């Protein structure tokens, strides 16, 4: 089912746009470089769909993993402040003039890790047991703090770099290219594989520390790995497409509701469903207000915020 949805979303992403293309023509263009629609499909839409799929998939996997880590369905890279930290790191890299290929992902990862460390630190001050409410509050605060610092950094940047950093902050997939897809894949493949390998330990972690330890999980090591891997993944998405919130919230939630919470099924399907969701959101973002393009993050937020409210109510109860 999820595979079919993912496939349909990708084909739709290739077809829909300023120049509509029939499904058969879109597929032909993928196979045959001399087809009539090949330039649009192969150079513009295919890398864009692929990048959106990868970014969305990875955000959903990171969201599901973070939710097991903090044992709370409200956790998500954006809400926990990781995206904000990654964004700050990436802006600093841009303003300082580090090369986009490795400089931005590296600084974004450092920013995401810094944000997690700060969120943990703040939560621990309030409560040793990482109360979900405190954790979420700390995440939002750290996110706001990161965004304030980002603004400061931009104000003191030189005009040219200010412009490129601002364009980049707006995010989205309009600048997608095959190079971009490759750069993203290089950073994202290993951490995604590590999280998949940790699936069973995430099941144990979601039970709580004491039961997980009793069942033989190495809780501290698993937790560290999850934090580092989700930080790298968040950084990879932020470096490629800016800040996109709520994918990591909506997708794992919808999947748990249908296939249950076991991570060996949840994580791979979250990747596919997160990819499909983001491709659909991006397709919508570039078509509803043609020729203008909406930020894809606005679309994901419109879906995500009401769901967040419903989940918050359930969790607090």
């Amino acid at each position, binding site marked *: 089912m999820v595979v079919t949805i993912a496939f349909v979303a990708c084909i739709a992403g290739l077809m829909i746009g300023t120049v509509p293309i029939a499904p058969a023509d879109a597929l032909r263009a993928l196979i045959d470089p001399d087809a009539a629609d090949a330039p649009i499909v192969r150079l513009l839409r295919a890398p864009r769909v692929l990048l959106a799929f990868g970014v969305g998939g990875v955000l959903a996997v990171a969201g599901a993993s973070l939710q097991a880590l903090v*044992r709370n369905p409200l956790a998500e890279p954006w809400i926990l402040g990781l995206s904000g930290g990654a964004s700050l790191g990436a802006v600093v890299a841009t303003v300082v003039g580090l090369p986009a290929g490795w400089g931005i992902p590296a600084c974004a990862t450092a920013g995401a890790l810094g944000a997690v460390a700060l969120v943990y630190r703040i939560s621990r001050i309030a409560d040793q047991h990482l109360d979900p409410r405190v954790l979420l509050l700390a995440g939002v605060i750290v996110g706001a703090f990161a965004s304030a610092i980002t603004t400061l950094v931009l104000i003191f940047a030189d005009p040219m770099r200010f412009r490129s950093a601002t364009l980049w902050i707006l995010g989205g997939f309009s600048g997608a290219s095959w190079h971009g897809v490759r750069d993203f894949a290089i950073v994202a493949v290993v951490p995604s594989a590590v999280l998949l*390998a940790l699936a069973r330990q995430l*099941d*144990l972690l979601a*039970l*709580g520390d004491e039961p997980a330890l009793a*069942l*033989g999980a190495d809780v501290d090591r698993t937790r560290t790995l999850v934090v580092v891997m989700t930080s790298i993944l968040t950084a990879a998405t932020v470096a490629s497409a800016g800040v996109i919130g709520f994918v990591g919230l909506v997708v794992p939630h919808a999947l748990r509701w249908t296939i249950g919470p076991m991570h060996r099924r949840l994580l791979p399907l979250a990747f596919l469903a997160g990819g499909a969701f983001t491709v659909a959101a991006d397709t919508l973002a570039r078509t509803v207000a043609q020729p203008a393009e909406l930020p894809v993050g606005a679309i994901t937020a419109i879906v995500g915020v009401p769901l967040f409210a419903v989940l918050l109510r359930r969790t607090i109860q």
Partner: protein
Amino acid sequence: MIVAADSVSVRYRGAEADAVSGVSFAVTAGEMVAIGGPNGCGKTTMLRALQGLVVPTSGQVLLDGRPVASWTRRQVAQLIGALPQREEPAFPMRVEDAVALGRWAHLGAFAAPGARDHDAIDAAIARCDIESLRQRRIDTLSGGEWQRVRLARTLAAQPRALLLDEPTSALDVGHEMALFELMRDLADTGIAVVVVTHHLNVAARFADRMVLMQHGRVTREGPPRAAMTSELLSDLFSWPVRITTLPDGVPQFVAERDPERADHG
């Protein structure tokens, strides 16, 4: 000895006194031992020390004759099935999946559960009589059903010892008795069962031995008939206690009313 503690003391960082002080304790295969004592007497800390989850400030814990520090968490989990007191799963899974988590210590990161794992899971489910709950979600279970599922989960690892921390504290009498009967059966099949409980009267009917603790020390250890005396229990709980005896000779305690207030009751 499957699990043995030799003069174990534990002091938590920043604490003024030892949580556990010079406790020696051992349990063999087929034996059921109940640990009792007032709140904060060190029972739970003792269970944690036996699993190697807290490092003793002095003394040592031996599992199968080897210091617990030389065991990996996974190896400990294969030997000891521990049931912590508190557990609130974040996401409601099916009973079958919950029990299968007990096999983790025997599985690699990528290995799918094999025939032996499925056999162990099925046996644990049958042992705890939860076959009819297999497909239920754990958030729909009653307290008694949930404890049986958790016990089945620890049994899925085929442990040689069970360390259970107040497994019946939230259960009504019927479910409590059923769980104790099950623990006794498990001991009779050769598993070493250690159960921390406040319900000494129930424990006295099932346990081979009782270990009574106070202020981090063992104040009495022995068969229920020898361990449960009115002087000792009165001192332990700082409350007057009388002992009666069941027809089969098992001692039961009754806490007295405060004589100054009993007239008004």
